[in-house]
């Protein structure tokens, strides 16, 4: 039985040594190159005494970064991807949580690391791939690995202002990749166009699927997602036939009428997720590519990538939303009502996940882990964990699961999961801010920030850009005389939401 994700690579490199595994618009690595360089990194880390440790990979989005991930795992360590676009304050919070002994850098990021308060080892990718591979050492660390050992820690937004590191193990990732590739019908002829950042679990869809089947993944330059016609030109140039993108990346193409000019002619499998696909835009895609497969994916990072899927095979009316469907094989969804009983048909309940796909929890944070990874309330007889997503859903008349809303103030914006509370905590840290409230305007998809204080909007935004990732910066900001409160003293979000509607009508 397979118990390590690297077995995919060990196997694929024999079948397709010279085929391109990972590439961007300038450079590509064959499976043989990935295999050799990753094993050099694994050997190097072992000789440095780094074993079963978190290893930070702080590099720009590049095929080398992916090789570094596997290199870390070859040494029986687990990788923690950090992006150069993350603000320093956030990176320092992450390092404080991890206390890593090693960081792997590229030539650009190694300069940035020097400014960190960090005393561990710093390695340059181009140097450590020169290490001669020690087969005996690699074999030994593999023999001592088990499938519940972690592969990675990825950090997600936390409502208290501190990002949470989700730890996933080999067994969960293997379970995910086996079932995902089955649903998407991936094979050696699949050519992926990667959109999602490498510092989230979302990129496993392409990275690990390539590894398993010997398929090729092209990293699409981020800037192309601003210029939709150029984006489709890229898809055609590299004959990309499979994409797993956030909805906003897809709607940008359809909404700007790119299909009148150019059609992504090789594209046959389109997976999307993280957000609701506006039906009008979906219909444009469907009409343009009537023979393509469209699959809606749903799942929290805590349940390893995605855990539910829905193949769109029937017609949808403009007022309908695409269901999140059903769980992958070997995953179970419990829809629990307020009394922790199974919601009956049509009733609202919290989506809870049960199965191998559950990650190990939050790194160095047992309290947060115990809040969300809890004993299955339906099982009184033996320990069994479920993950409470905080998402509310219900079953429609066809028995398909539909996402309805959130229980709390977590939102999805441009495919990113954001706790509005984390933005508020960071605004409150700015000198001169008295109070603040952040809400999400679903209609124009803007993060709206309101605050009371003697600080200019310009200063607030400039300050936030130092602390928060780009995608968490409010899109609209307004100073108020006071923040409306409810009778029992809580921020009255309903009044602020009404304010948006009044403003809109006044225009």
């Amino acid at each position, binding site marked *: 039985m397979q118990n390590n994700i690297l077995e995919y690579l060990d196997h694929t490199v024999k079948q397709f040594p010279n085929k391109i595994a990972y590439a961007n618009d300038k450079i590509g690595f064959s499976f043989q190159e990935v295999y050799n360089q990753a094993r050099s990194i694994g050997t190097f880390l072992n000789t440095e005494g780094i074993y079963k440790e978190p290893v930070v990979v702080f590099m720009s989005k590049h095929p080398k970064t992916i090789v570094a991930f596997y290199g870390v795992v070859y040494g029986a360590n687990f990788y923690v991807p950090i992006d150069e676009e993350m603000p320093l304050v956030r990176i320092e919070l992450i390092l404080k949580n991890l206390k890593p002994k090693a960081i792997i850098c590229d030539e650009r990021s190694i300069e940035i690391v020097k400014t960190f308060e960090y005393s561990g080892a710093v390695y340059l990718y181009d140097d450590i791939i020169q290490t001669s591979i020690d087969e005996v050492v690699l074999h030994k660390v593999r023999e001592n690995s088990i499938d519940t050992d972690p592969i990675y820690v990825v950090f997600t937004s936390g409502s208290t202002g501190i990002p949470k590191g989700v730890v996933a193990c080999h067994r969960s990732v293997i379970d995910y990749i086996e079932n995902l590739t089955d649903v998407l019908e991936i094979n050696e002829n699949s050519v992926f166009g990667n959109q999602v950042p490498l510092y989230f679990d979302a990129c496993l869809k392409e990275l690990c699927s390539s590894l398993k089947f010997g398929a090729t993944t092209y990293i699409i330059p981020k800037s192309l997602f601003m210029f*939709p016609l150029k984006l489709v030109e890229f898809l055609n140039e590299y004959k990309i036939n499979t994409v797993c993108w956030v909805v*906003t990346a897809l709607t940008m193409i359809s909404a700007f009428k790119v299909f009148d000019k150019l059609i992504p002619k090789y594209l046959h499998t389109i997976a999307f997720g993280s957000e609701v696909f506006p039906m009008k835009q979906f219909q444009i895609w469907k009409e343009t590519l009537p023979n393509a497969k469209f699959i809606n994916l749903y799942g929290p990072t805590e349940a390893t990538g995605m855990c539910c899927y829905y193949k769109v095979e029937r017609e949808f009316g403009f007022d309908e939303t695409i269901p999140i469907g059903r769980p992958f094989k070997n995953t179970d969804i419990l829809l629990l009502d307020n009394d922790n009983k199974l919601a009956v048909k049509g009733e609202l309940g919290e989506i809870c996940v049960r199965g191998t796909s559950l990650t190990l929890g939050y790194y160095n944070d047992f309290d947060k882990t115990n809040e969300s990874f809890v004993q299955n309330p339906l099982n009184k007889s033996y320990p069994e964990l479920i993950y409470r997503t905080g998402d509310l859903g219900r079953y429609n008349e066809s028995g398909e699961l539909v996402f309805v809303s959130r229980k709390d103030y977590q939102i999805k914006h441009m495919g990113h999961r954001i706790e509005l509370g984390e933005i508020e905590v960071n605004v409150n840290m700015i000198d001169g801010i008295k109070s603040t409230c952040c809400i999400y305007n679903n209609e124009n998809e803007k993060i709206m920030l309101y605050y009371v204080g003697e600080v200019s*909007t310009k200063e*607030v935004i400039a300050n936030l850009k130092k602390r928060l990732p780009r995608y968490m910066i409010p899109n609209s900001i307004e100073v108020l005389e006071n923040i409306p409160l409810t009778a029992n003293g809580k921020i009255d979000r309903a009044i602020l939401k009404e304010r948006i509607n009044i403003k809109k009508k006044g225009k």
Partner: protein
Amino acid sequence: MKILLDILNELHPDIEFENHNKLIDDGVLDSFDIVSLIAEIDSEFDVAIPAEEIIPDNFNSAKALYALIERLSDED
């Protein structure tokens, strides 16, 4: 031009748009900004920017973007 600068300032109050000419190259604007801008330009100027005009050269400065709006309104 003032209306356009107002729209840009609403998106990023911390940026001096009047003299900036590398809005794309320096990563000031992202894909969300481009989508918002195109929608705002459509509603404020009644100008629909076609796909082939959504290119870096037209979005690198407020001046270039304004020139595009003027060119497209003349064509109507």
